[in-house]
């Protein structure tokens, strides 16, 4: 079984648009949305939710005002500036429990937080595992791990050839959690200097974790010189460019209609998505 995770470094380069199209093109796969804090893949795949599960995150501290004497030891101990006026801000609290350890009055308790939900759904393209992390919650990496684990179980049970995952932007915790142990990272870039900078960083993360990468240049014709720069860079780094997709408003039209762009039109964008899937399949 091949686990393909789609990343970009920079946000908004078209990861979900690509995954939506590959979902329609690939056969025998499980779909997975690892962008748990701003998930969008469900807007393309229009899932019917079959199972809903709770995701319990890190505990947070609560101070009992009745017991608290206002001695201030917890304020000094907390390194996350999470305690103001002897109240814990649950969005700043990282759940370390230092306040609980230092409190001489036992006024602090650690409580579980419902940090989000994860779902197993049916789509007309196959099963989808996705999630929704509550606003401002921590542990997106752990929720990604939960979602990936479930996708693997389903893929094993159904004998699927692929797990196709839509990844988060950036290079931090949820990206590392999406990437570790994957068989191929498909990096969706675009010909902006910002995206090139971010591409180099996300490729460095792939190398760091020993995951093979394949690059796709989206909206390549917005700046053909920068696109050539990406191709040169990839050639030197020994990374293939799987496809170059042109800029076309058909993409936002398809998003608006809630369908993969390959089902929306048969123009150049669709043909390049087909090329991209061939390139991915050939490396899986």
């Amino acid at each position, binding site marked *: 079984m091949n686990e393909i995770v789609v990343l970009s470094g920079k946000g908004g380069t078209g990861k979900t648009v690509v995954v939506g199209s590959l979902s329609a093109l690939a056969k025998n796969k499980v779909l997975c949305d690892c962008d748990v*804090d701003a998930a969008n893949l469900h807007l393309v795949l229009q899932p019917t939710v079959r199972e809903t599960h709770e995701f319990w995150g*890190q505990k947070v501290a609560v101070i009992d005002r009745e017991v608290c004497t206002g001695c201030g030891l917890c304020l000094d101990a907390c*390194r996350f500036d999470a305690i103001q006026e002897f109240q814990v801000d649950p969005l700043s609290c*990282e759940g370390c429990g230092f306040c609980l350890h230092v409190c001489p009055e036992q006024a602090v308790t650690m409580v579980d937080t419902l940090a989000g939900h994860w779902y197993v759904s049916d789509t007309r393209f196959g099963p989808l595992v996705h999630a929704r992390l509550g606003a*401002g919650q921590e542990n997106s990496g752990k929720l990604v791990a939960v979602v990936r684990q479930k996708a693997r179980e389903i893929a094993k049970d159904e004998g699927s050839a692929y797990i196709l995952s839509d990844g988060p932007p950036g290079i931090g915790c949820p990206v590392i*959690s999406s990437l570790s142990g994957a068989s191929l990272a498909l990096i969706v870039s675009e010909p902006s200097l910002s995206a090139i900078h971010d591409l180099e960083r996300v490729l460095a993360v792939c190398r*760091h974790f020993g995951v093979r990468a394949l690059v796709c240049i989206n909206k390549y014709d917005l700046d053909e010189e920068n696109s050539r720069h990406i191709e040169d860079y990839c050639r030197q780094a020994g990374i293939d460019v799987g496809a170059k997709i042109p800029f076309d408003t058909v993409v936002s039209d398809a998003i608006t209609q809630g369908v993969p762009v390959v089902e929306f039109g048969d123009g150049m964008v669709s043909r390049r998505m087909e090329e991209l899937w061939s390139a991915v399949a050939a490396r899986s």
Partner: protein
Amino acid sequence: MILAVASGKGGTGKTLVATSLALSLAGQGPVQLLDCDVEEPNAHILLRPTITSSRPVLVPVPRVDEEKCTYCRVCSEACPYKAIAVMGKNVLVFPELCHGCGVCTYVCPEKAISEEGREVGVVEEGRAGEVQFVHGRLAIGEAMAPPVIRAVKQRIDRSSTVIIDVPPGNSCPVVEAVKGSDFCLLVTEPTPFGLHDLALAVELARKLAIPCGVVINRDGSGDQGVEFYCAQQHIPVLLKIPLDRRIAELYCRGQTLVAGMPSWRSAFSDLLQSIQRLAVVER
């Protein structure tokens, strides 16, 4: 005033808006731009600052003195991140899991744990014309952005107008970047993706009790969903930037909107005035 420029969804134009806002303020008192998207900082590509200082960001991680350690496991039981483990007569520290909270050091009955700084990124400072510039850079392979974001925000100069370029998403790095701001400007695009993530960002701004307003980028594409949502939620739409291939091309080349199309300067000055009014009214 501290103004956070956020979005939920990536690639909607946060950096484009933040950099043009900063430049349009030049000549009207001190202005500071903080790029808190430390995983993928991009504001420097548009502003091209001269960097004058670079400091490592250190997270304190435990170092165990094996001479004093009695392998009692009090530290590993106290650590909620499983960053320290005792296996027989071995203490294992997993620095990349450590949040640097200091609990293990505090609870150790033998005083066998001290802390040492582990570098997880850098903070760089400099100037781009009249804009004082600060950004952070998370090291490759590191998971935790918040310590680097905190280090960037320690450089805030309260006497300036402070503009914060926030990372995408909706989880802890965004909270770290946005909290303490007087206003949160949410940049979105008029598609179902933009709307979905805008609603999450609004939920977060409200949890943090920070007033917010919206910039619609690539206006003219997609649908009316974002505008309907903003009207229904009473969130002001403060600026619309049209879908214009020339704007996208400027961005590709790393040029700011106000530098590449100076006619936009007044729109950004007006945007800032609207924000100043709203931040005062709502606070």
